Every structure is written in structure tokens, then in C-alpha cells.
């Protein structure tokens, strides 16, 4: 961890970021499903937080996860870190069935290999520990024998703290929101993981520092082969570093494609709605996505069919009856929508 991690990457501008296609799979999930019971014993209900999620993350690959607020993105990440246990589904690390082999809790090796950056920078730091202690702890557990204090300074420098030693001595309440996010990023990097699940890691950073962090992610995937699950609401940044992007709506993965392809040729009506709602100063708040309001999707004992149907301008009777299966539209581009029936993969985009 030396200056190769410095925040401001060199200015080889306009170098294409397009990665090589092959990323050997490191982590894979299949049919991951999570239902949370709510209500009392007499009237049990279930929140269908995540339904049948399947995807993989390759070595040095960034998979972006975008979509509706409350659609199961954080749940996906929390399941993979084993903070919560799935209702169904499997998790494989290097082909090893993790839930079978480590059924009760994750091994130390798994916890080192798979790191998480939590969504809420205010809830994820311990108020009683200094910033330095937050970074020293994982180092002592997972990388004993290191010169801890030196590594701590390197990590803080890498995420743009100036002067780093002073920030190491600070407590979380002394930091701004964006500074807390950078601490969380440094902490995930500390143990040299293979996979980082980054849940909105840059949402409170100004665009300049944000680009620094995104370039750092890009560099880490290139140079160390770290794979990322990058959860974000910022579609442009998903396109910037995401090799692939998965779109979620109400607990379902509804579309997945190579990121530039997804943004230029969105197939699912929800993906189209999402892209149309990206802030655009030229147009203003009053235009675009007029039809947006519609019904709020319910995750509590939801009705059958596609969850987007109540808001969808193209909804047909079948949409309210069954959830469509995946249809492959192109290599690496699939969608779950009845507009694209499985046997007519070349159906025109809606």
C-alpha cells in the first residue's frame, strides 16, 4: 500500500476503461431469497425483501447494483457477508458452497476475503474508537505482524485525508459525512480482501473526491484483482466503473447488461423510467417521468405477477399473473419482462 493508491490518479485522460472480457468467477450467488417475518404471532406477514437473485462477481470485475430504494440491494450485500441468513439460495466462493461448509457462521478466512462498506456512515463507525483504531483492529486480526500505525497512515492518505496522522487521532463525531465514508472505504481496504461489497460508498462525497474514490476502485480491480459489488443510485458512476450493471425493483433483479449497453439500450420499462429521471439541469424537475407516481409497490405479502405491473404503461393481463422469466436479448444482456417473451428474444425495445 504505497503511493500506487494515491487519490488522484494520473491523467491519462480519455484512455478507454473497457476491461477485458474474461473475469474468472470469484463469488457467485444462486437463487438468493430473503423474507423477513413481521407482525405478531397471530397475524404473521412477510416482507419479500429479495427474491431469486443470481449473479457472479469475477476477479477484477465491478458489478454495479442499482434500482429502487427498498428493492433489496443492501439485503443482497448483507446476505453475502453473512450478517443475515437467506431463506433460500446458495453462496459460492471459488466454487465452494459457503452456506453448506460454514453453516453457523462465516469463517475468519471468509470474513477477510469478503469485506463490506456499509451504507450509513453515521451508524457504522463506533463512536468510542478513534479513526486510527477503526483501521488498526482489522489489521491486527487479519494481517498480524504488520507495522500497524504505518499502514494506518498509508490507508488514510490513500482516501485523501490531510494531514493523515491528525485524522487518525480523531473520533467519528469530529468528521463530516463524506469523511466518515472515506474511513469506511479505508477500513475495507485494510485487510486486502478479494471481494468488496460497497453499499453507496460515495453518496456523500463531492464529485472531485468521488472521482478519486472511483478511480481508486478501478485501480484496485486492475492491479489487485479485487472484485466489487458497487451499490449506488448514481447511474453515471455505475456506468463509469461498472463492468456490468444489474437493475432491481421490489426485490427482483429485472435487468442486467454490460453497463454502457444497459444505459444506451434499456429494455425493461423500469430501467427506462429510472434513466429518464436522472437529474438534468437543462430540463428541470418538472419534466420527464410524469407517469412516475403510480402505486407504491408492496413487499408485504405481494400479489403475484411482475411487481412493476401496477405502474407500467405496457402492462397486460399476464403481467399481473406471473413473474416473467429471464430473456436473453444479447450476449450478457437479459431482462425479465413479458414484453420480451423467451421465444422471441429479438422483440423490439419498448
Amino acid at each position, binding site marked *: 500500500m504505497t503511493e500506487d493508491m494515491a487519490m488522484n490518479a494520473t491523467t491519462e485522460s480519455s484512455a478507454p476503461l473497457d476491461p477485458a472480457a474474461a473475469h474468472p468467477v470469484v463469488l457467485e450467488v444462486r437463487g438468493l431469497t430473503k423474507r423477513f417475518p413481521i407482525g405478531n404471532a397471530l397475524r404473521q406477514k412477510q416482507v419479500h425483501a429479495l427474491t431469486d437473485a443470481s449473479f457472479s462477481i469475477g476477479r477484477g470485475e465491478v458489478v454495479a447494483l442499482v434500482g429502487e430504494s427498498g428493492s433489496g440491494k443492501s439485503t443482497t450485500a448483507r446476505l453475502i457477508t453473512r450478517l443475515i441468513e437467506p431463506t433460500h439460495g446458495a453462496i459460492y466462493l471459488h466454487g465452494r458452497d459457503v452456506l453448506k461448509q460454514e453453516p453457523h457462521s462465516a469463517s475468519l478466512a471468509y470474513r477477510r476475503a469478503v469485506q463490506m462498506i456499509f451504507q450509513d456512515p453515521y451508524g457504522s463507525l463506533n463512536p468510542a474508537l478513534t479513526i486510527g483504531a477503526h483501521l488498526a483492529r482489522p489489521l491486527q486480526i487479519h494481517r498480524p505482524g504488520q507495522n500497524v500505525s504505518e499502514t494506518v497512515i498509508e490507508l488514510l492518505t490513500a482516501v485523501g485525508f*490531510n494531514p493523515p496522522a491528525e485524522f487518525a487521532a480523531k473520533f467519528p463525531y469530529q468528521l463530516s459525512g*463524506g*469523511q466518515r465514508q472515506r474511513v469506511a472505504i479505508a477500513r475495507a481496504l485494510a485487510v486486502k480482501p478479494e471481494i468488496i461489497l460497497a453499499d453507496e460508498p460515495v453518496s456523500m462525497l463531492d464529485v472531485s473526491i468521488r472521482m*478519486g474514490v472511483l478511480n481508486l476502485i478501478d485501480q484496485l480491480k486492475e492491479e489487485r484483482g479485487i472484485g466489487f459489488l458497487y451499490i449506488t*443510485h*448514481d447511474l453515471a458512476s455505475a456506468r463509469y466503473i461498472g463492468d456490468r450493471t444489474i437493475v432491481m425493483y421490489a426485490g427482483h433483479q429485472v435487468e442486467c447488461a454490460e453497463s454502457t449497453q444497459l444505459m444506451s439500450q434499456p429494455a425493461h420499462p423500469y430501467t427506462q423510467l429510472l434513466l429518464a429521471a436522472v437529474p438534468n439541469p437543462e430540463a428541470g424537475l418538472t419534466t420527464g417521468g410524469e407517469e412516475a407516481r403510480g402505486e407504491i409497490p408492496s413487499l408485504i405479502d405481494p400479489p403475484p405477477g411482475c411487481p412493476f405491473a401496477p405502474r407500467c404503461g405496457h402492462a397486460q393481463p399476464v403481467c399481473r399473473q406471473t413473474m416473467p422469466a429471464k430473456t436473453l436479448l444479447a450476449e450478457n444482456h437479459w431482462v425479465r419482462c413479458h414484453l420480451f417473451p423467451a421465444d422471441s428474444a429479438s422483440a423490439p425495445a419498448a
Partner: protein
Amino acid sequence: MNTKPPVPEAPGSAGGPAAPLLEVRNLYVEYLTPRGPAQAVHNVSFSIGRGQVFGLAGESGCGKSTIAHSILRVLRPPAVITGGQIRVDGADVLKMQDAELEDFRWRKVAMVFQSAMNSLNPVITVGEQIDDVLIRHNRLSPAQARERSAELLKIVGIESARLKSFPHQMSGGMRQRVVIAIALALNPALLIMDEPTTALDVVVQKDILRQIQQLKAALGFSILFITHDVSLMVEFSDNMAVMYAGEVVEMAPAREIFSNPIHPYTRGLLSSFPSLQGRRRKLTGIPGSPPDLVNPPSGCKFHPRCTRCTRLETEAAPQLTEVTAGHWVAYHDGLRLTEAAA
């Protein structure tokens, strides 16, 4: 501290018989650190007219939340306000006594804190938390409160069945939306929103901001809006200020800043956004690192990172100057612009 010339009327406050709803004048805030005072807010002035939205943008750690906390008088040691004035609806906020403050915080100003996701009580359902505010501050009966709570949740796009949820049963964005609903419940004169939509998808975000705009049109409150999403800020705000290292470096109508940015930091901010179309290009942001607030650079605080300015760092810091009507900038070459025009 008062030797500096007061900054003339900020955009949005000019004209009209009514005084602006919020006026911040020459505000200075320091955090006392072991190495000495850190100048988190340095001579900041701006105002917000009634029914107007004012956006505050700027680097992470540049003092935006500190300004918001000063207005609400919730700063704690080691923070000290070392100078300046804050007026809300004519009342001098920095002189208020505790009893007055209590009322002021609930009735005049409501704030969605940046830590919103983490600020709900974990052992009480969100419905009860909203009800509680309505019963205590709007004097509604429990039944009326429950009905109103459901309405408020609807405004922020959450089904009313979720009134019975505990905060940990909600997603990050849902918790953020509950806090927005609570702030709206209070019918404030000034609504401060500090990064209120970081966990919201753009569809929900747009929808909520539209609803807030409609409420504002009906009720006439003013908004201080803090976000790193400059595009969103331009869409939603009437006027905006860009801060760097505790100072306002540029202030103008939001659209003017977007189409005609002058300060090199503002220009850097606007040009660092990745795009949704075209070739993927590598973007590097603004080179250099954020300044040390205990030992800020001399002269213009941005000079170590500035690639445009030709002036020496030894020169005095540039003052905020009106370069075209309503467009203020603190930039040496911006000043030259006016000198040339004069």
C-alpha cells in the same frame, strides 16, 4: 472581525418589501483542536427569500453542515461561533435563550440531518415517531395523528402498512424518507435538508422533491438545500452558493452557476461528472487534496490546486465581488473581469 466590508445583499433577497426569511451575515465558526482552531466557516454571508430554495454545494468537509447546525443552534463544543449574525424571520438566532430556542427549533426551523438514516429511535415504530411529533407539536388527537402520519408517508412514497415497522426493518432510503416526512409534519418556516436523498433512487428522489415543491408553493416555506449532486441542486434551487474550505467562493442564481461558472473550483466541480452517454473517459476530478483547515493556504485558499489563476499566493485573498448582476465570485481573475468592465 467586523472590519471587513459586509457582503452586499445576496441574490434572492434583493427588492421586495419583506425582509428575507433567513439572513446569515459574516458567520465565523471554529472547531478547537489540539493543533489550534480549525476555521470551518469563514466569513460566510447569504440570505434566503420567502418561498425560495437556496442550495449549498462544496467539497466534503468544507463547512456546509456546520453552517446548518449554526442556524439551528445545535453546534456543541469544541465548535465556537466566533463572529457574525443569523436572523430567521427577523429574530436574532445567536442571541436566543434556551426557552426561546426550544420553540424556534420546532416551529420555525425543521432540519433533515445528514445522519437521518441513523437518527430514528430504534425501539419505537416509525408510525409512533411521526404520531408523537404531530400530537406534541401540532396538538392532534392520536387518531388524527395516525391519519396524518399515513398521509405524510404517502408523500414520501412509503405504503402505510409500514407505519408499524421499526427503523431496522426499513431500508436506508426508507429511513431517510421517514425523517423527511417528520420534518414536513412540523410546517416549518425554514426547512433545512442536509443531503436528504443520498439513499434514494432518482425516480423516488424526483417525486419527493416535486411534492415538496408543491407543498412549498401552498405553504410558502423556504428551503436550505445541501447536496453534492450539483445537477439536482440546479434543478431544485433558485439560488446557490459554492463553498471551498469554509468560504463561499461563488454565489448566483442556480441556473447562472450551471451555465456560466466562473470560479475555477466551481468549474472543476461541474466538469468532473461522469456522463450517461458517449465514450467512457477517465475523469480525475480536481487534482490535489482538501486543505488543512488549521493551517489553511495563504491568500486564495484554492491556489495550491488552481491551474488558472496567475496571481501569487502572497496576494491577499480575493473578496466576494459581484461580477455581473446577481453573480458573486471570490476569484482574482474574476475581479480583473470587473476592473476591465469599469
